[in-house]
Protein backbone atom coordinates (compact mmCIF):
# COMPACT_ATOMS: atom_id res chain seq x y z
CA UNK A 1 0.00 0.00 0.00
CA UNK A 2 2.73 2.47 0.88
CA UNK A 3 5.06 2.89 -2.07
CA UNK A 4 8.79 3.19 -1.61
CA UNK A 5 8.70 6.97 -2.02
CA UNK A 6 6.35 7.65 0.86
CA UNK A 7 7.96 8.70 4.11
CA UNK A 8 4.88 8.54 6.28
CA UNK A 9 1.82 6.41 5.69
CA UNK A 10 -1.09 6.62 8.11
CA UNK A 11 -3.85 4.09 7.65
CA UNK A 12 -7.20 4.22 9.42
CA UNK A 13 -5.78 6.00 12.47
CA UNK A 14 -8.15 6.42 15.41
CA UNK A 15 -7.42 8.21 18.63
CA UNK A 16 -9.93 8.71 21.41
CA UNK A 17 -9.42 10.56 24.68
CA UNK A 18 -11.53 10.06 27.74
CA UNK A 19 -12.24 13.16 29.74
CA UNK A 20 -14.24 11.97 32.71
CA UNK A 21 -17.36 10.36 31.25
CA UNK A 22 -17.18 11.94 27.85
CA UNK A 23 -15.26 10.61 24.89
CA UNK A 24 -13.37 12.91 22.60
CA UNK A 25 -12.56 11.56 19.16
CA UNK A 26 -9.36 13.42 18.51
CA UNK A 27 -8.72 11.51 15.31
CA UNK A 28 -11.25 9.50 13.27
CA UNK A 29 -10.14 7.22 10.51
CA UNK A 30 -7.28 9.36 9.30
CA UNK A 31 -5.53 8.20 6.13
CA UNK A 32 -2.54 10.20 5.04
CA UNK A 33 0.52 9.61 2.91
CA UNK A 34 3.45 11.99 3.00
CA UNK A 35 6.39 11.78 0.66
CA UNK A 36 9.97 12.76 1.30
CA UNK A 37 10.73 16.45 1.06
CA UNK A 38 7.15 17.64 1.30
CA UNK A 39 6.20 20.93 2.94
CA UNK A 40 2.88 20.51 4.67
CA UNK A 41 0.78 22.87 6.74
CA UNK A 42 -1.84 21.32 8.98
CA UNK A 43 -4.54 23.84 9.84
CA UNK A 44 -7.81 23.83 11.66
CA UNK A 45 -9.58 25.21 14.70
CA UNK A 46 -8.65 24.27 18.24
CA UNK A 47 -9.64 20.73 19.09
CA UNK A 48 -9.68 19.66 15.46
CA UNK A 49 -7.05 17.04 16.19
CA UNK A 50 -4.10 18.66 14.43
CA UNK A 51 -1.83 18.59 17.48
CA UNK A 52 -2.80 15.00 18.19
CA UNK A 53 -1.87 14.15 14.63
CA UNK A 54 1.49 15.82 15.06
CA UNK A 55 2.17 13.97 18.33
CA UNK A 56 1.21 10.73 16.64
CA UNK A 57 3.56 11.30 13.74
CA UNK A 58 6.22 12.26 16.28
CA UNK A 59 5.66 8.98 18.15
CA UNK A 60 4.80 10.81 21.34
CA UNK A 61 1.34 9.28 21.19
CA UNK A 62 -0.02 5.92 20.08
CA UNK A 63 -3.14 5.43 17.97
CA UNK A 64 -5.99 3.30 19.31
CA UNK A 65 -6.41 1.73 15.90
CA UNK A 66 -4.75 1.87 12.50
CA UNK A 67 -1.19 1.59 11.32
CA UNK A 68 1.60 4.11 10.99
CA UNK A 69 4.50 3.37 8.72
CA UNK A 70 7.57 5.54 8.85
CA UNK A 71 10.04 4.95 6.02
CA UNK A 72 8.24 1.72 5.17
CA UNK A 73 8.47 0.36 8.71
CA UNK A 74 5.49 -0.15 10.99
CA UNK A 75 6.31 1.94 14.05
CA UNK A 76 3.01 1.64 15.94
CA UNK A 77 3.93 -1.73 17.35
CA UNK A 78 7.44 -0.80 18.42
CA UNK A 79 8.42 -1.00 22.07
CA UNK A 80 8.67 2.37 23.85
CA UNK A 81 12.47 2.30 23.86
CA UNK A 82 12.59 1.58 20.13
CA UNK A 83 10.17 4.44 19.55
CA UNK A 84 12.49 6.65 21.58
CA UNK A 85 15.32 5.61 19.26
CA UNK A 86 13.21 6.50 16.20
CA UNK A 87 12.38 9.88 17.76
CA UNK A 88 16.01 10.43 18.46
CA UNK A 89 17.22 9.64 14.95
CA UNK A 90 14.40 10.37 12.51
CA UNK A 91 12.20 13.08 14.04
CA UNK A 92 12.83 16.66 15.04
CA UNK A 93 10.41 18.68 17.17
CA UNK A 94 9.96 22.43 17.29
CA UNK A 95 7.60 23.89 19.87
CA UNK A 96 5.73 27.14 20.17
CA UNK A 97 7.35 27.86 23.56
CA UNK A 98 10.79 26.68 22.42
CA UNK A 99 11.25 24.32 25.40
CA UNK A 100 14.89 25.07 25.91
CA UNK A 101 16.39 23.80 29.17
CA UNK A 102 16.88 27.07 31.07
CA UNK A 103 20.04 26.10 32.97
CA UNK A 104 21.89 24.87 29.88
CA UNK A 105 23.74 27.12 27.43
CA UNK A 106 22.65 27.37 23.81
CA UNK A 107 25.42 24.96 22.82
CA UNK A 108 24.45 22.48 25.54
CA UNK A 109 20.80 22.66 24.48
CA UNK A 110 21.75 21.84 20.92
CA UNK A 111 23.97 19.03 22.19
CA UNK A 112 21.17 17.46 24.23
CA UNK A 113 19.74 15.07 21.59
CA UNK A 114 23.26 13.88 20.77
CA UNK A 115 24.00 13.33 24.45
CA UNK A 116 20.77 11.41 24.91
CA UNK A 117 21.64 9.27 21.89
CA UNK A 118 24.95 8.39 23.56
CA UNK A 119 27.22 9.95 20.95
CA UNK A 120 30.91 10.30 21.95
CA UNK A 121 31.81 13.75 23.28
CA UNK A 122 34.35 14.61 20.57
CA UNK A 123 31.88 14.03 17.77
CA UNK A 124 29.16 15.90 19.65
CA UNK A 125 31.35 18.98 19.94
CA UNK A 126 32.03 18.89 16.21
CA UNK A 127 28.34 18.55 15.33
CA UNK A 128 27.30 21.31 17.74
CA UNK A 129 30.00 23.61 16.37
CA UNK A 130 28.72 23.04 12.86
CA UNK A 131 25.10 23.63 13.88
CA UNK A 132 26.03 26.86 15.67
CA UNK A 133 27.78 28.05 12.52
CA UNK A 134 24.89 27.08 10.24
CA UNK A 135 22.34 28.93 12.34
CA UNK A 136 24.52 31.98 13.00
CA UNK A 137 24.67 31.35 16.73
CA UNK A 138 28.44 31.20 17.17
CA UNK A 139 28.55 34.31 19.36
CA UNK A 140 25.61 33.07 21.42
CA UNK A 141 26.94 29.56 22.12
CA UNK A 142 27.65 30.12 25.83
CA UNK A 143 24.51 32.16 26.54
CA UNK A 144 21.66 30.72 28.53
CA UNK A 145 18.12 30.87 27.06
CA UNK A 146 17.13 33.85 29.25
CA UNK A 147 19.97 35.83 27.67
CA UNK A 148 18.68 35.19 24.15
CA UNK A 149 15.99 36.95 22.13
CA UNK A 150 12.87 35.06 21.05
CA UNK A 151 14.18 34.60 17.53
CA UNK A 152 17.51 33.35 18.81
CA UNK A 153 15.78 30.93 21.15
CA UNK A 154 13.75 29.45 18.33
CA UNK A 155 16.88 29.20 16.20
CA UNK A 156 18.56 27.27 19.01
CA UNK A 157 15.48 25.06 19.17
CA UNK A 158 15.59 24.48 15.40
CA UNK A 159 19.31 23.74 15.58
CA UNK A 160 18.58 21.23 18.33
CA UNK A 161 15.76 19.63 16.32
CA UNK A 162 17.92 19.22 13.22
CA UNK A 163 21.31 18.38 14.72
CA UNK A 164 20.56 14.65 14.35
CA UNK A 165 19.58 15.27 10.68
CA UNK A 166 16.07 13.83 11.04
CA UNK A 167 13.89 12.72 8.14
CA UNK A 168 10.97 14.81 9.28
CA UNK A 169 10.71 18.10 11.13
CA UNK A 170 7.53 18.65 13.14
CA UNK A 171 6.76 22.23 14.10
CA UNK A 172 3.87 23.10 16.41
CA UNK A 173 3.01 26.79 15.98
CA UNK A 174 6.69 27.67 15.51
CA UNK A 175 5.94 31.39 15.22
CA UNK A 176 3.25 31.56 17.89
CA UNK A 177 5.44 33.27 20.45
CA UNK A 178 7.33 35.51 18.04
CA UNK A 179 6.66 38.91 16.52
CA UNK A 180 6.02 39.19 12.78
CA UNK A 181 9.58 39.98 11.74
CA UNK A 182 11.33 37.26 13.73
CA UNK A 183 8.50 34.86 12.89
CA UNK A 184 9.16 35.50 9.22
CA UNK A 185 12.87 34.82 9.79
CA UNK A 186 12.14 31.53 11.49
CA UNK A 187 9.76 30.44 8.74
CA UNK A 188 12.36 31.22 6.10
CA UNK A 189 14.86 29.15 8.03
CA UNK A 190 12.45 26.23 8.13
CA UNK A 191 11.69 26.59 4.42
CA UNK A 192 15.40 26.62 3.66
CA UNK A 193 15.74 23.33 5.51
CA UNK A 194 12.82 21.98 3.50
CA UNK A 195 14.52 23.13 0.32
CA UNK A 196 17.49 20.99 1.33
CA UNK A 197 15.17 17.99 1.34
CA UNK A 198 13.93 17.76 4.89
CA UNK A 199 10.25 16.95 5.19
CA UNK A 200 8.53 19.78 7.06
CA UNK A 201 5.17 19.52 8.78
CA UNK A 202 3.88 22.72 10.39
CA UNK A 203 0.80 22.90 12.56
CA UNK A 204 -0.61 26.41 12.72
CA UNK A 205 -3.57 28.67 13.22
CA UNK A 206 -1.94 31.31 11.11
CA UNK A 207 -3.43 31.31 7.58
CA UNK A 208 -0.64 33.40 6.17
CA UNK A 209 1.88 30.88 7.41
CA UNK A 210 -0.22 27.93 6.27
CA UNK A 211 -0.65 29.44 2.82
CA UNK A 212 3.09 29.27 2.19
CA UNK A 213 3.11 25.47 2.31
CA UNK A 214 2.82 23.53 -0.94
CA UNK A 215 0.39 21.10 0.60
CA UNK A 216 -2.31 22.26 2.98
CA UNK A 217 -4.30 19.91 5.13
CA UNK A 218 -7.41 21.24 6.87
CA UNK A 219 -8.76 19.32 9.81
CA UNK A 220 -12.03 19.45 11.67
CA UNK A 221 -13.45 17.19 14.40
CA UNK A 222 -10.59 14.75 14.11
CA UNK A 223 -10.94 14.19 10.42
CA UNK A 224 -9.21 15.55 7.34
CA UNK A 225 -11.49 18.10 5.72
CA UNK A 226 -9.38 18.94 2.72
CA UNK A 227 -5.95 18.05 1.43
CA UNK A 228 -4.79 20.41 -1.31
CA UNK A 229 -1.47 20.34 -3.06
CA UNK A 230 -0.54 23.35 -5.10
CA UNK A 231 0.91 22.66 -8.52
CA UNK A 232 4.65 23.27 -8.38
CA UNK A 233 4.42 26.03 -11.00
CA UNK A 234 2.14 28.00 -8.71
CA UNK A 235 4.85 28.33 -6.15
CA UNK A 236 6.77 31.51 -6.64
Amino acid at each position, binding site marked *: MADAESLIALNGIERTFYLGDSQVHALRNVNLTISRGEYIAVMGPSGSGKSTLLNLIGLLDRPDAGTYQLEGRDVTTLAPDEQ*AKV*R*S*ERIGFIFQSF*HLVPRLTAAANIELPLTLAGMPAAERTKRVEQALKEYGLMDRAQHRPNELSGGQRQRVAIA*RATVQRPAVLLADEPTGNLDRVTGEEVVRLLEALNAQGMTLIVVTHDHALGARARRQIRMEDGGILSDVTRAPDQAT
Partner: protein
Amino acid sequence: MKIIDTFRYASDAATGNPLRTSLLILAMSIGVAAVVILTALGDGARRYVVGEFSAIGTNLVIVLPGRSETRGFNPANLITNTPRDLTLNDASALLRLVGVERISPILVATTEVNASGKLREAMLLGTNADYILVRKQKLALGRFLTKGDLGHGAAEVVLGAAIRREIFGTENPLGKTVRVGDRRLRVIGVLSEGGQGMGMTTDELLIVPVATAQAMLNTNTLFRILVEARSREQIGEVKARVLKMLTQRHEGEEDVTVITQDAVLKTFDKILNVLTLGVAGIAAISLAVAGILVMNVMLVSVTQRTAEIGLLKALGATSASVRHLFMVEAVLLSLTGAVVGIALGYLGAAILRNFYPTFPAYPPLWAVLAGLGTALVSGLIFGVMPARRAAQLDPIQALSKR
Protein backbone atom coordinates in the same frame (compact mmCIF):
# COMPACT_ATOMS: atom_id res chain seq x y z
CA MET B 1 22.95 7.89 27.14
CA LYS B 2 26.49 7.57 28.44
CA ILE B 3 27.00 7.22 32.18
CA ILE B 4 29.31 10.20 32.39
CA ASP B 5 26.74 12.35 30.54
CA THR B 6 24.03 11.14 32.89
CA PHE B 7 26.16 12.24 35.84
CA ARG B 8 26.93 15.58 34.25
CA TYR B 9 23.32 16.28 33.37
CA ALA B 10 22.18 15.27 36.88
CA SER B 11 24.79 17.39 38.60
CA ASP B 12 23.91 20.33 36.34
CA ALA B 13 20.30 19.87 37.33
CA ALA B 14 21.31 19.83 41.00
CA THR B 15 23.48 22.93 40.78
CA GLY B 16 20.85 24.64 38.65
CA ASN B 17 18.82 25.14 41.81
CA PRO B 18 21.37 26.09 44.46
CA LEU B 19 18.95 26.85 47.28
CA ARG B 20 17.10 23.56 47.01
CA THR B 21 20.33 21.65 46.62
CA SER B 22 22.13 23.27 49.53
CA LEU B 23 19.17 22.81 51.87
CA LEU B 24 18.98 19.17 50.93
CA ILE B 25 22.69 18.66 51.39
CA LEU B 26 22.45 20.42 54.74
CA ALA B 27 19.68 18.09 55.91
CA MET B 28 21.57 15.00 54.81
CA SER B 29 24.84 16.23 56.25
CA ILE B 30 23.27 16.92 59.63
CA GLY B 31 22.03 13.33 59.71
CA VAL B 32 25.41 11.90 58.80
CA ALA B 33 27.27 14.29 61.11
CA ALA B 34 24.98 13.20 63.95
CA VAL B 35 25.90 9.58 63.33
CA VAL B 36 29.61 10.38 63.14
CA ILE B 37 29.72 12.57 66.26
CA LEU B 38 27.50 10.38 68.41
CA THR B 39 29.42 7.23 67.55
CA ALA B 40 32.65 9.11 68.18
CA LEU B 41 31.29 9.92 71.64
CA GLY B 42 30.19 6.36 72.31
CA ASP B 43 33.34 4.82 70.99
CA GLY B 44 35.42 7.44 72.77
CA ALA B 45 33.77 6.46 76.04
CA ARG B 46 34.58 2.82 75.32
CA ARG B 47 38.20 3.57 74.51
CA TYR B 48 38.53 5.78 77.55
CA VAL B 49 37.28 3.07 79.92
CA VAL B 50 39.27 0.33 78.20
CA GLY B 51 42.36 2.54 78.28
CA GLU B 52 41.91 3.25 81.97
CA PHE B 53 41.70 -0.45 82.74
CA SER B 54 44.63 -1.33 80.53
CA ALA B 55 46.68 1.25 82.39
CA ILE B 56 46.36 -0.84 85.54
CA GLY B 57 48.75 -3.33 84.01
CA THR B 58 48.57 -6.47 81.93
CA ASN B 59 47.69 -10.07 82.78
CA LEU B 60 46.35 -8.89 86.11
CA VAL B 61 44.25 -10.84 88.59
CA ILE B 62 42.89 -8.57 91.30
CA VAL B 63 41.95 -9.82 94.75
CA LEU B 64 39.45 -7.86 96.81
CA PRO B 65 38.50 -8.69 100.38
CA GLY B 66 34.91 -9.77 100.95
CA ARG B 67 32.58 -11.73 98.79
CA SER B 68 30.52 -9.65 96.42
CA GLU B 69 27.04 -10.94 97.09
CA THR B 70 24.86 -11.48 94.06
CA ARG B 71 22.36 -13.74 95.78
CA GLY B 72 20.64 -11.15 97.89
CA PHE B 73 20.40 -11.16 101.66
CA ASN B 74 20.82 -14.50 103.33
CA PRO B 75 20.05 -14.84 107.06
CA ALA B 76 22.99 -17.24 107.33
CA ASN B 77 25.30 -14.38 106.48
CA LEU B 78 24.39 -12.74 109.75
CA ILE B 79 26.04 -15.55 111.68
CA THR B 80 28.82 -16.86 109.51
CA ASN B 81 29.91 -14.32 107.03
CA THR B 82 32.44 -12.09 108.67
CA PRO B 83 34.93 -11.63 105.90
CA ARG B 84 38.49 -12.11 106.92
CA ASP B 85 40.81 -9.38 105.91
CA LEU B 86 43.51 -9.82 103.34
CA THR B 87 46.87 -9.84 105.04
CA LEU B 88 50.49 -9.63 104.04
CA ASN B 89 50.78 -13.37 104.71
CA ASP B 90 48.05 -13.99 102.15
CA ALA B 91 50.01 -11.93 99.67
CA SER B 92 53.26 -13.82 100.37
CA ALA B 93 51.46 -17.12 99.96
CA LEU B 94 50.10 -16.10 96.56
CA LEU B 95 53.59 -15.36 95.30
CA ARG B 96 54.44 -19.04 95.68
CA LEU B 97 51.64 -20.20 93.38
CA VAL B 98 52.40 -21.74 89.97
CA GLY B 99 51.99 -19.28 87.10
CA VAL B 100 52.32 -16.18 89.25
CA GLU B 101 55.00 -13.80 88.06
CA ARG B 102 54.70 -11.09 90.68
CA ILE B 103 52.35 -9.84 93.29
CA SER B 104 51.78 -6.42 94.66
CA PRO B 105 49.85 -5.80 97.89
CA ILE B 106 48.06 -2.49 98.05
CA LEU B 107 46.92 -0.36 100.93
CA VAL B 108 45.39 3.04 100.29
CA ALA B 109 44.55 5.96 102.57
CA THR B 110 44.44 9.72 102.48
CA THR B 111 47.08 11.50 104.46
CA GLU B 112 48.98 14.75 104.72
CA VAL B 113 52.48 15.42 103.61
CA ASN B 114 54.52 18.12 105.24
CA ALA B 115 57.89 19.42 104.17
CA SER B 116 59.77 22.70 104.07
CA GLY B 117 56.85 24.39 105.76
CA LYS B 118 54.26 23.28 103.21
CA LEU B 119 51.36 21.05 104.03
CA ARG B 120 49.40 19.17 101.42
CA GLU B 121 46.80 16.46 101.34
CA ALA B 122 47.85 13.40 99.40
CA MET B 123 46.98 9.80 98.68
CA LEU B 124 49.13 7.30 100.55
CA LEU B 125 49.79 4.05 98.73
CA GLY B 126 51.50 1.24 100.60
CA THR B 127 52.93 -1.44 98.34
CA ASN B 128 56.08 -3.38 97.45
CA ALA B 129 58.98 -3.02 95.02
CA ASP B 130 57.25 -5.02 92.31
CA TYR B 131 54.40 -2.50 92.11
CA ILE B 132 56.21 -0.39 89.55
CA LEU B 133 56.57 -3.45 87.28
CA VAL B 134 53.02 -4.71 87.80
CA ARG B 135 51.52 -1.30 87.07
CA LYS B 136 54.01 -0.47 84.31
CA GLN B 137 54.88 2.93 85.69
CA LYS B 138 57.99 4.99 85.21
CA LEU B 139 60.28 6.89 87.48
CA ALA B 140 61.43 10.39 86.73
CA LEU B 141 64.10 10.49 89.43
CA GLY B 142 65.86 8.16 91.85
CA ARG B 143 64.78 4.60 92.48
CA PHE B 144 61.65 2.75 93.56
CA LEU B 145 61.02 0.99 96.87
CA THR B 146 63.67 -1.39 98.22
CA LYS B 147 63.19 -5.05 97.43
CA GLY B 148 62.92 -7.19 100.51
CA ASP B 149 60.71 -8.75 103.11
CA LEU B 150 57.12 -7.53 102.90
CA GLY B 151 56.90 -7.37 106.68
CA HIS B 152 59.85 -5.02 106.93
CA GLY B 153 59.08 -1.38 106.16
CA ALA B 154 61.85 1.09 105.48
CA ALA B 155 61.23 4.79 106.14
CA GLU B 156 61.28 5.77 102.49
CA VAL B 157 58.83 7.36 100.08
CA VAL B 158 58.40 7.77 96.30
CA LEU B 159 56.62 11.01 95.38
CA GLY B 160 54.08 11.68 92.67
CA ALA B 161 55.09 14.32 90.16
CA ALA B 162 52.59 16.93 91.35
CA ILE B 163 53.54 16.52 95.02
CA ARG B 164 57.21 16.90 94.19
CA ARG B 165 56.55 20.02 92.17
CA GLU B 166 54.41 21.65 94.79
CA ILE B 167 56.65 20.87 97.73
CA PHE B 168 60.11 21.01 96.28
CA GLY B 169 59.64 23.08 93.14
CA THR B 170 62.66 22.61 90.93
CA GLU B 171 64.87 21.57 93.86
CA ASN B 172 66.20 18.02 93.87
CA PRO B 173 64.07 16.16 96.43
CA LEU B 174 66.18 12.98 96.55
CA GLY B 175 67.54 12.31 100.03
CA LYS B 176 65.35 14.98 101.65
CA THR B 177 62.94 14.03 104.37
CA VAL B 178 59.23 14.71 104.32
CA ARG B 179 56.79 14.30 107.13
CA VAL B 180 53.88 12.01 106.30
CA GLY B 181 51.34 11.75 109.08
CA ASP B 182 53.49 11.28 112.16
CA ARG B 183 56.50 9.75 110.37
CA ARG B 184 59.57 11.22 108.78
CA LEU B 185 60.36 9.52 105.50
CA ARG B 186 63.30 9.88 103.15
CA VAL B 187 62.50 10.68 99.51
CA ILE B 188 64.11 8.02 97.28
CA GLY B 189 62.37 8.60 93.97
CA VAL B 190 59.84 10.57 91.94
CA LEU B 191 57.28 9.09 89.55
CA SER B 192 57.13 10.50 86.05
CA GLU B 193 54.25 12.75 85.22
CA GLY B 194 50.93 11.72 83.70
CA GLY B 195 50.55 8.20 85.05
CA GLN B 196 46.93 7.11 84.95
CA GLY B 197 44.92 4.25 86.25
CA MET B 198 41.51 3.46 87.68
CA GLY B 199 40.42 7.03 87.19
CA MET B 200 43.07 8.52 89.41
CA THR B 201 46.33 10.13 88.56
CA THR B 202 49.57 8.91 90.05
CA ASP B 203 50.77 12.50 90.21
CA GLU B 204 49.37 12.96 93.70
CA LEU B 205 50.56 9.70 95.24
CA LEU B 206 52.95 9.02 98.06
CA ILE B 207 54.24 5.49 97.65
CA VAL B 208 55.68 3.86 100.77
CA PRO B 209 56.53 0.24 101.70
CA VAL B 210 53.37 -1.61 102.63
CA ALA B 211 54.62 -2.43 106.15
CA THR B 212 55.35 1.23 106.77
CA ALA B 213 51.87 2.14 105.62
CA GLN B 214 50.31 -0.51 107.85
CA ALA B 215 52.27 0.79 110.81
CA MET B 216 51.27 4.38 110.07
CA LEU B 217 47.61 3.46 109.74
CA ASN B 218 47.78 0.99 112.59
CA THR B 219 46.25 -1.85 110.62
CA ASN B 220 47.29 -5.21 109.26
CA THR B 221 44.83 -5.47 106.44
CA LEU B 222 45.23 -4.86 102.70
CA PHE B 223 43.00 -3.00 100.27
CA ARG B 224 43.85 -5.14 97.25
CA ILE B 225 46.34 -7.70 96.08
CA LEU B 226 47.41 -7.42 92.46
CA VAL B 227 48.60 -10.72 91.01
CA GLU B 228 50.36 -10.77 87.67
CA ALA B 229 50.13 -14.01 85.73
CA ARG B 230 53.10 -15.17 83.69
CA SER B 231 51.10 -14.99 80.46
CA ARG B 232 47.70 -14.07 79.17
CA GLU B 233 46.78 -17.76 78.74
CA GLN B 234 47.44 -18.49 82.40
CA ILE B 235 45.12 -15.79 83.73
CA GLY B 236 42.23 -18.23 84.15
CA GLU B 237 44.30 -20.89 85.95
CA VAL B 238 45.96 -18.33 88.17
CA LYS B 239 42.57 -16.91 89.10
CA ALA B 240 41.35 -20.39 90.13
CA ARG B 241 44.51 -21.12 92.11
CA VAL B 242 44.38 -17.76 93.87
CA LEU B 243 40.80 -18.36 94.88
CA LYS B 244 41.57 -21.89 96.07
CA MET B 245 44.61 -20.82 98.07
CA LEU B 246 42.83 -17.96 99.80
CA THR B 247 39.81 -20.11 100.56
CA GLN B 248 42.16 -22.63 102.20
CA ARG B 249 43.93 -19.94 104.14
CA HIS B 250 40.60 -18.52 105.30
CA GLU B 251 39.48 -21.78 106.84
CA GLY B 252 37.51 -22.97 103.85
CA GLU B 253 35.43 -19.87 103.49
CA GLU B 254 35.30 -18.16 100.15
CA ASP B 255 35.37 -14.63 101.42
CA VAL B 256 37.38 -12.88 98.79
CA THR B 257 36.49 -11.71 95.31
CA VAL B 258 38.90 -12.40 92.50
CA ILE B 259 38.42 -10.48 89.28
CA THR B 260 40.48 -10.53 86.17
CA GLN B 261 41.19 -7.39 84.30
CA ASP B 262 40.35 -9.26 81.11
CA ALA B 263 36.80 -9.98 82.24
CA VAL B 264 36.27 -6.42 83.39
CA LEU B 265 37.59 -5.10 80.12
CA LYS B 266 35.40 -7.41 78.10
CA THR B 267 32.31 -6.44 80.04
CA PHE B 268 32.92 -2.75 79.64
CA ASP B 269 33.81 -3.23 76.02
CA LYS B 270 30.55 -5.03 75.42
CA ILE B 271 28.37 -2.58 77.32
CA LEU B 272 29.90 0.44 75.67
CA ASN B 273 29.74 -1.11 72.22
CA VAL B 274 26.02 -1.67 72.69
CA LEU B 275 25.72 1.90 73.89
CA THR B 276 27.51 3.17 70.80
CA LEU B 277 25.28 1.10 68.57
CA GLY B 278 22.21 2.43 70.33
CA VAL B 279 23.33 6.00 69.92
CA ALA B 280 24.15 5.33 66.28
CA GLY B 281 20.66 3.91 65.83
CA ILE B 282 19.11 7.06 67.20
CA ALA B 283 21.27 9.15 64.90
CA ALA B 284 20.27 6.93 61.98
CA ILE B 285 16.67 8.09 62.45
CA SER B 286 17.77 11.56 61.43
CA LEU B 287 19.32 9.96 58.36
CA ALA B 288 16.01 8.34 57.48
CA VAL B 289 14.29 11.71 57.90
CA ALA B 290 16.84 13.22 55.56
CA GLY B 291 16.15 10.42 53.09
CA ILE B 292 12.43 11.18 53.12
CA LEU B 293 13.29 14.82 52.59
CA VAL B 294 15.33 13.85 49.54
CA MET B 295 12.28 12.01 48.21
CA ASN B 296 9.98 14.99 48.79
CA VAL B 297 12.31 17.43 47.16
CA MET B 298 12.86 15.13 44.21
CA LEU B 299 9.10 14.70 43.79
CA VAL B 300 8.64 18.46 43.79
CA SER B 301 11.49 18.68 41.34
CA VAL B 302 9.78 16.22 39.00
CA THR B 303 6.64 18.34 39.07
CA GLN B 304 8.60 21.53 38.45
CA ARG B 305 10.54 19.99 35.62
CA THR B 306 7.61 18.33 33.86
CA ALA B 307 8.21 20.25 30.65
CA GLU B 308 11.88 19.36 30.70
CA ILE B 309 11.10 15.68 31.10
CA GLY B 310 8.63 15.84 28.21
CA LEU B 311 11.24 17.55 26.11
CA LEU B 312 13.85 14.91 26.91
CA LYS B 313 11.42 12.26 25.75
CA ALA B 314 10.62 14.16 22.57
CA LEU B 315 14.34 14.43 21.91
CA GLY B 316 14.64 10.65 22.07
CA ALA B 317 15.31 9.89 25.75
CA THR B 318 14.11 6.46 26.79
CA SER B 319 12.16 6.02 30.02
CA ALA B 320 15.24 4.36 31.47
CA SER B 321 17.38 7.40 30.66
CA VAL B 322 14.94 9.73 32.39
CA ARG B 323 14.74 7.40 35.38
CA HIS B 324 18.52 7.24 35.61
CA LEU B 325 18.83 11.01 35.48
CA PHE B 326 16.61 11.47 38.50
CA MET B 327 18.07 8.54 40.41
CA VAL B 328 21.58 9.80 39.86
CA GLU B 329 20.55 13.26 40.97
CA ALA B 330 19.05 11.92 44.20
CA VAL B 331 22.12 9.79 44.87
CA LEU B 332 24.50 12.65 44.10
CA LEU B 333 22.63 14.90 46.50
CA SER B 334 22.64 12.25 49.23
CA LEU B 335 26.29 11.42 48.72
CA THR B 336 27.38 15.05 48.73
CA GLY B 337 25.38 15.52 51.90
CA ALA B 338 27.04 12.46 53.39
CA VAL B 339 30.53 13.64 52.53
CA VAL B 340 29.83 17.09 53.94
CA GLY B 341 28.31 15.40 56.99
CA ILE B 342 31.37 13.23 57.54
CA ALA B 343 33.58 16.30 57.30
CA LEU B 344 31.33 18.08 59.81
CA GLY B 345 31.37 15.03 62.04
CA TYR B 346 35.16 14.82 62.04
CA LEU B 347 35.32 18.54 62.71
CA GLY B 348 32.90 18.16 65.61
CA ALA B 349 34.89 15.25 67.03
CA ALA B 350 38.10 17.26 66.69
CA ILE B 351 36.51 20.17 68.55
CA LEU B 352 35.40 17.77 71.28
CA ARG B 353 38.93 16.38 71.57
CA ASN B 354 40.24 19.91 71.71
CA PHE B 355 38.09 20.69 74.72
CA TYR B 356 38.52 17.31 76.42
CA PRO B 357 41.98 16.12 75.43
CA THR B 358 41.82 12.99 77.60
CA PHE B 359 38.66 11.82 75.88
CA PRO B 360 39.52 9.92 72.67
CA ALA B 361 36.48 10.98 70.60
CA TYR B 362 37.53 9.46 67.29
CA PRO B 363 34.68 8.40 64.98
CA PRO B 364 34.98 4.65 64.38
CA LEU B 365 35.50 3.68 60.75
CA TRP B 366 32.48 1.39 60.72
CA ALA B 367 30.23 4.30 61.71
CA VAL B 368 31.63 6.53 58.99
CA LEU B 369 31.12 3.81 56.40
CA ALA B 370 27.65 3.04 57.75
CA GLY B 371 26.73 6.72 57.57
CA LEU B 372 27.94 6.92 54.01
CA GLY B 373 26.19 3.67 53.12
CA THR B 374 22.90 4.67 54.73
CA ALA B 375 22.94 8.01 52.92
CA LEU B 376 23.63 6.27 49.62
CA VAL B 377 20.94 3.63 50.18
CA SER B 378 18.36 6.17 51.33
CA GLY B 379 19.20 8.28 48.28
CA LEU B 380 18.63 5.24 46.09
CA ILE B 381 15.47 4.05 47.81
CA PHE B 382 13.89 7.45 48.15
CA GLY B 383 15.04 8.40 44.67
CA VAL B 384 13.21 5.48 43.05
CA MET B 385 9.70 6.84 43.35
CA PRO B 386 10.37 10.34 41.96
CA ALA B 387 12.48 8.85 39.18
CA ARG B 388 9.74 6.42 38.21
CA ARG B 389 7.18 9.17 38.26
CA ALA B 390 9.38 11.22 35.96
CA ALA B 391 9.90 8.31 33.59
CA GLN B 392 6.17 7.61 33.40
CA LEU B 393 5.20 11.17 32.57
CA ASP B 394 3.17 11.49 29.42
CA PRO B 395 5.32 13.60 27.10
CA ILE B 396 2.37 15.30 25.42
CA GLN B 397 0.90 16.58 28.66
CA ALA B 398 4.35 17.41 29.91
CA LEU B 399 5.08 19.47 26.82
CA SER B 400 1.74 21.23 26.72
CA LYS B 401 2.58 22.94 30.03
CA ARG B 402 3.79 26.36 29.18
